[in-house]
Every structure is written in structure tokens, then in C-alpha cells.
């Protein structure tokens, strides 16, 4: 078996591990971590595909390599957005749980963050 194929199989296992974490771990932050492991596996498989297509003096097919870079940035944006959402949920509800019964439905939108500065937000102009 070639090194590239071996890495391809490794990527398949990473996908399985990521899916397992996404489904089984109850904490949303851990799900985001698992999503990143899963994404790492998918991108790695793309890299294996690129490496298999090495030709013309290129060490790998540049098209999938470029797409992986785009994908990495998109997946960072997804992670940042999900983390911001988790932190906001925690600030408002006091829990970051995904279970429906973990949240008291009557919770009002709380303006709790920010350490008590009640002044209006600065606006431009």
C-alpha cells in the first residue's frame, strides 16, 4: 500500500471519529471540536485525491489544493460563528445545552453581558 492510500484510509477513520463525536458528545463546544476533526478528515481526503493527481511536475493537483484552502477558511468562519452562538446562549440561559428541557421557556432576552455599563452603545456620526 502506498503512503497516499494509507493517508486516505486514515482520513476515512477521522470522518468516522468526527461523526461519532458529533452525535454522542452532549456539549455543543465538543460537537464543534468534533466537526473540526471531521472537517480535517474530509480535507485530508481531498488532499489525497490531489496527491493522486500529481502530474506535470506538480506535487499534487493544484485545483483540489486550492479548494481545500477555501474550505479551511469557510470552516473557520463556521467555527467562529458557532462559538459566538454558544457563548451567547450561555450568557442568556446560563447553560449551553442543546436539550430542549434544559432551557426555561420564559427566559427573557437578558442584557447581561458587558459588566454593567448601561450607557448607550457608541454610534458613529
Amino acid at each position, binding site marked *: 500500500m502506498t503512503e497516499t492510500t494509507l493517508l486516505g484510509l486514515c482520513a476515512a477513520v477521522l470522518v468516522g471519529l468526527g*461523526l461519532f463525536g*458529533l*452525535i454522542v458528545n452532549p456539549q455543543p463546544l465538543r460537537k464543534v471540536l468534533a466537526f473540526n476533526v471531521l472537517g480535517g478528515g474530509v480535507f485530508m*481526503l481531498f488532499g*489525497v485525491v490531489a496527491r493522486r493527481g500529481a502530474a506535470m511536475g506538480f506535487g499534487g493537483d493544484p485545483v483540489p489544493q486550492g479548494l481545500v484552502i477555501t474550505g479551511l477558511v469557510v470552516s473557520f468562519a463556521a467555527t467562529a*460563528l458557532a462559538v459566538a452562538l454558544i457563548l451567547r*446562549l450561555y450568557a442568556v440561559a446560563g447553560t449551553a445545552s442543546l436539550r430542549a428541557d434544559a432551557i426555561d421557556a420564559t*427566559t*427573557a432576552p437578558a442584557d447581561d453581558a458587558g459588566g454593567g455599563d448601561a450607557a448607550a452603545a457608541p454610534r458613529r456620526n
Partner: protein
Amino acid sequence: MASMLASADAVTAGGAWLVLALIVPVAGILAAMLAGGRHVARIVVVVVLVGFAVAVAIGWQMLQSGSELVYWLGGWAPPLGVGLRADSLSAVMMVITAVVVAGITIYARAEFRTPAGVTEARAPYAFWIMLLGIWCGLNAVFVSADLFTLYVALELLTFSAMPLVCLDGRAETLQAALRYMIFALMGSVLYLLGAVLIYGAYGTLDIAQLGQVTQADAATVAACVLMTIGLLAKTALFPLHLWLPPAHAGAPPAASAVLSALVVKGSFFIVVRIWFDAMPGVPGLGAAQLLAAMGAAAILFGSVIALRQQRLKLLIAYSTLAQIGYLFIMFPLAFDPAVGAFVRGDALTGGMLQAMSHATAKAAMFMAAGLIYATLGHDRIGDMAGVARVVPVTVLAFAVGGVALMGIVPSGAYLAKKLLLGAADGSGQWWWSLVLEAGGFLTASYVVLVIAQALAKPAAPIVPRVRVARSQEWAALLLAVCSLLLSLAVLGPVPASLISNPLAPKELLASAIAIIGGALLVLAYSRELPRFAIVDRIAGLLRPLRGALCALAQGFVRIDDAARQWSIAGLSMLALTLMFAAAMVLQR
């Protein structure tokens, strides 16, 4: 397969319009983000007008030339470059999206107004920019000819839709948004994994090129399964719908309208692209039957649970769940055993028509629900008797939208149902005809419940909490009427003989049967009963039966609660992945 450089012949005249469809919303996002404040809403109006014109121009071009529009971005030919391609499906979806976005814009101008005294407020800024983001993502989905560009478009949709879910900042909507976000991310990663395998097998991501070369080998089957499952998770097809009811019911009404009418159609459209265009010979009939079975389950669960709701917005959200199911009935009907592939025909036309008619009707229904909420200060179905006397246009909009969904002449859903029934008869798959017919009664049931309750006599005269803006009522009604008249709009491509006179005795009878059937279902197991004396009397007579049926319906609710637990939904997703793979492999 690999033409070296951009030669002019594959690019069609008018292809540049497709670029405009993509960059007009982008320009709007950038301008709105920079200008901020009150300018945002103004910029959106300009973008809606221009974007509408672009969509109509694309539709017009296609009617004139009768062929697809193709454009190569940067002048680079696929597979090295990225192409844009619009066929009739893209064109009609773009036009209907523009119509719905325009309607929502009219509606939301009253809801998302920057309050006096501040230069900029959070909710309007976010709502308008995300609306443009969704439009941009949808147009990209409709015109993109490349599987990876579609991935970026999907993420654009998700990132724009998520903030709309939790725009009001309450804990439960934040949680709904988080569930949606993570589940949708899982879906898009699976989609991307499929695209990776496709590239590994064929060295191209261009859908038209793939359509000519795909074979049912291991990589293609795996790719098809992974992309389909990922997209189903984003479309919220039962049982992968854990995020949909709380997200669509908890968002502000204008946002719910966008999410329910448009966002779920994006991923549905890509499923159609993959099954019909990229790899028509790969999935096979077995997988299509599985897909349609999920659709049938969605219709059954969504409709039954809708009738067990106490809140109007949740009822409409579950109705969306059911209507999404409808969209997937067409797949086995579009399979042609002679060529062993999915072919474009009446079934696909019917399915797309269903998507369009649901987009317009559902946007109208969510808007109407928002106005009812604003008027009463709540949306409890049990306490909204008499609301039709206060906001008649709103209730009329809901009724017209509901009737359009039920499939009464000349609504889009009517024609869709007729086309699908024809295809089911033609292919001998009578069981899907049963599902379609039963679906009509199920849809009628929750529409009848709401309308009857709105028309009932209130216990005490209703004092409206606020006067809703007339423009909002009319925007809802406009979209509802669009849905009701949709079948007339597609008369060109579809023979007129398919549409009968709505006042013909046969059609009147069919409509009456649907409504009576719906009413019987309401009497049988709805949670709230409309406040009419006769209803009480009949319900009294039926008490033992009603008790049993209510218990049965409550069982559906419990199954749904269990299916929407995170770990169960995740397991369902994996199990379905394996089932689809087995179906496709055994087909060979």
C-alpha cells in the same frame, strides 16, 4: 472532456445575466454593511428592484431562446474554471424567489424599521443583510454549475439563515439556532465529502460534464449517498428535522417566512440537480422509493402533529415539515426504467411546481400568523376566535395560502398534484397516488382548523393590541394569490388542458370533498376545536372515537419528540446513509 481554453461556442448569449444574478445581491450586502443605519433598508429596496428585473430578464431570455444560458467565469472553461448554467428550473426558481423576497421586503419594512433616536439598530441591520445573503446564496444555488461552488453557496445560506432564527435573542431561539447551525454544518461537511469523492473519480466538479460520464461505481455511489444525506439534513426531511420546528416557529415572522419559504428549497434544489443532472443513472429506483418513503412519513407526521399544536406558528412550522415531504414524492415517479435513469418530465415539473407554490403560500401564511400575533398579542389557536373580524385581509391571506396548499384549482399545488398523479398512474406506482390524495386531506385539516377558529364568534369582542400596517396585510395576500394563480403562470410550457375551470361541478365537488375531509380530521383528533355550537355537538357524539384518535395522534407527537433528540437524529442520519448505500448497491 477537457477542452483546453474558453472557446466561444459553449457560452451562450445572455449568459452575463447570470453573473448579475450573483453579484447584484453581493453588491447590496457590501453597500448595506458599509452604509449601515437607515440606509440598509433603502439599499435593500434598490437591490430587490434590480434583482427582480434580472430574474425576469433571465426568464424572458430563456422563453425567447428556449435553451439554457451558460457562462464561464473568468473565461476559463470547466473543468478548470467554474461555469454558471441556468435551465428552465433555475429560471423559474429565481423568479419565484425574487417574488417572495419582494413580498417579504414589503412586509418587513414595518417590522424592521430603525427606531427613531438611534442611527443604527441591531435587528434591522442584521435582518436586511442576512436577507440579501440568503438571496445571494439561493441565486448561486440556482445558477451554479459546479459542485464546490454549490458548497460555498450552501454555507452562504446557512450562515445567513442562522442569525435570522435567533434575531430576538431569547434563550430558546438561541438554542434553536445552535441546533440548526451544528446539524447544518454536519450536513454540509457530508455534502463536501461527496464532492471530494466525485473529484477523485472524475477530475471534474462541473455538473453538465458529470452528467455525461458518471457511472454507478463505488466512489460515485458513495458520493451520491453522502451528498444526498447531507442535503436532506439541511432540508429537514423527516426524520432529519430536529432543528426545523423550533427554528421556524421561534423566529420573527418575516424571518420565518424567509426560512420556511426559501432556505430549505436551496438544499432541495441541489438534490434535484444531483439526481437528475449530475448522476441520473446512479441512485436507481430503490433509493428513490426510500426517499419518497421519507417524504410520505414527513407528510403524515408533519400534518398530524400540526393539528396537535396549540400555537399557530408551530402549526405552520409542522406544515412546512409536511410540505417538504411532498417535494420528495416525485423522485420514484421520475424514474424511467427503460433508460434506468431519472428523466425530466411531468413528475419533475410537478415537484418543482410544488416547491414554488409552497414558497409563496408558506411565506404568506407565516406573515399572516405574524400579523395575527401582533393583533392579539399571542398566537394561541384556542384563543383566536373572531380574529377574522379584526384583520379580515390577514385571515383572507392565510385562507388563500392554505387553499392554495390544499391543491384547489387553479393553484400551483393543484397542477403539481395533477402532474404527479399522472406520473404515478403512468408508472404504475399507485401507492404514491394514495399518499398524494391523503396528503390533500391532511393539508386541508390544519387549514380548516385555523380558518374555522378565526371565523368563530369570539367570547368577548377583540381589542387589537396594535393596528397592523396595511402594507403588511396586502403583502401577505399578494403572495397567497400568487400561489393560488401559479398554475396559470406556467401555462406556456404546460398544456392548458391540464387546468380545468375552477367552477366546473367536478372541481367544486373535489374542493368540497377536500374541505369536508379536512374538517372531519379536525373533529377526529385536533387538539383545539373551533368554537362553534355544531362542532361541540358532533364532537360530543364522537367522543369515544375522538379519544382514541387523539391518543393515537399524541403517539405521533411522542415519536416526533424522540426523533428530534440530538443523538437519535444523528443515529437516523447514519442509518439512512447505510440504507441509501444498500439501496443503490443492491440496485445493480
